[in-house]
């Protein structure tokens, strides 16, 4: 590795100049290069070189590979396909090999060692690059799924004045805001006095989620609607009590059925006309 590095160092200026010419011919790369200032480019190059040295000379690969992976992810995110990289690696290989044969024609053993070093280095780099692209793709898919879920916060009206809001999946700040917003709009449009927020589909309620949910309930209360939160499993309840985020001031009930029964009572529905009664009759 060391021998390869020394050889690369010696030929770096010439190799880099040629590679730059290759990069400029690939539109996607050229665009990224243009989006960076010369100072930024120089800085990145310097850092990349130092990390590369650390990897090849000291055998400490991790910082270099991590840096490479981070850069690759950025490239992947800006929509530069993986295949774009390949001519770059090929040019590098061909160029360095040519210079190597020229320099050490009389010492084939040395040429072989340096070639091995180069190939080892390039293989690792390409491997990391490929992995980073896979990861970026996975993330993109995850984000799209998230976006789809976000668009589907159904708020159903069970009867006059009663809304039901099933919350499913991840409740981050953005989604909590969106849930609250659509909830408040619905409360106004439907003149709801009661909302059942069912969180059976929320796998984990940590302090932040609890806080978001409590705030949504508080906002609803300010609009004149009472919120009942249902679907907190015994395990989640215990975890919430342990961390101390019990959502005080929020009425909670074990499951949706109890929530509907409570709604019947609060809205003054008799047993025969009650939704709880109907639901029970249906399942019987």
């Amino acid at each position, binding site marked *: 590795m060391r021998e390869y590095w020394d050889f690369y160092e010696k030929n770096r200026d010439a190799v880099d100049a040629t590679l730059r010419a290759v990069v400029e011919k690939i539109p996607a790369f050229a665009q990224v290069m243009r989006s960076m200032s010369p100072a930024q480019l120089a800085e990145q190059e310097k850092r990349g070189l130092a990390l590369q040295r650390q990897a090849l000379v000291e055998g400490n690969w991790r910082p270099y590979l991590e840096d490479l992976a981070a850069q690759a992810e950025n490239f992947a995110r800006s929509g530069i396909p993986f295949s774009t990289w390949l001519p770059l690696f090929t040019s590098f290989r061909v160029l360095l090999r040519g210079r190597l044969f020229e320099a050490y024609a009389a010492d084939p053993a040395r040429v072989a060692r340096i070639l091995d070093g180069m190939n080892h280095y390039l293989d690792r780099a390409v491997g990391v690059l490929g992995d980073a692209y896979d990861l970026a793709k996975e993330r993109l898919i995850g984000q799209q799924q998230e976006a789809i879920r976000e668009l589907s916060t159904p708020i159903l009206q069970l009867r006059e004045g009663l809304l039901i809001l099933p919350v499913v999946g991840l409740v981050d700040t953005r989604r909590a805001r969106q849930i609250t917003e659509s909830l408040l709009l619905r409360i106004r449009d439907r003149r709801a006095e009661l909302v059942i927020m069912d969180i059976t589909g929320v796998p984990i*309620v940590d*302090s932040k989620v609890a806080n978001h949910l409590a705030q949504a309930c508080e906002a609803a209360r300010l609009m004149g609607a009472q919120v009942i939160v249902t679907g907190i499993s015994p395990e989640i309840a215990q975890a919430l009590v342990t961390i101390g985020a019990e959502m005080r001031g929020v009425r909670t009930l074990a499951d949706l059925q109890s929530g509907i029964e409570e709604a019947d009572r609060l809205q003054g529905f008799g047993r025969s006309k009650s939704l709880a009664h109907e639901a029970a009759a249906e399942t019987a």
Partner: protein
Amino acid sequence: MAVTMAPESRLPVRDDGEIVGARRAARALAATLGFSETDLTMIATAVSEIARNMVEYGGGGEMTFAVIDGDGRVPGRRGLRITATDHGPGIPDVERAMQDGYTTGRGLGLGLPGARRLMDEFRVESAVGVGTTVSMTKWVV
């Protein structure tokens, strides 16, 4: 003292999606150790708190999950150790940050103290300008 560790898994935690990933990984690994459903939820909740802090305050970081066999005092006792490391601004006053209700953000200030109560062992090491490491362990009773 025989502390042997199975190969650990390591995950980056840089955004909400990866917080979910960390939570799932912890839960899945913990489930193989035979934790109760309540313990699994406690572990996932603690991971969620600490992972969120890493993303919100630590500029993102990394979590490792390791199975521990034997804790020295109780041979053969198994546990799950979670280590969260970031290279963010660090916490100037850890003792204060560990108090219920203390927050420099808009949270409830219950993440660190809550996670400590959810787990059996809990340690925060932090240096300003260097970063923060939280390590926490739950033992299978």
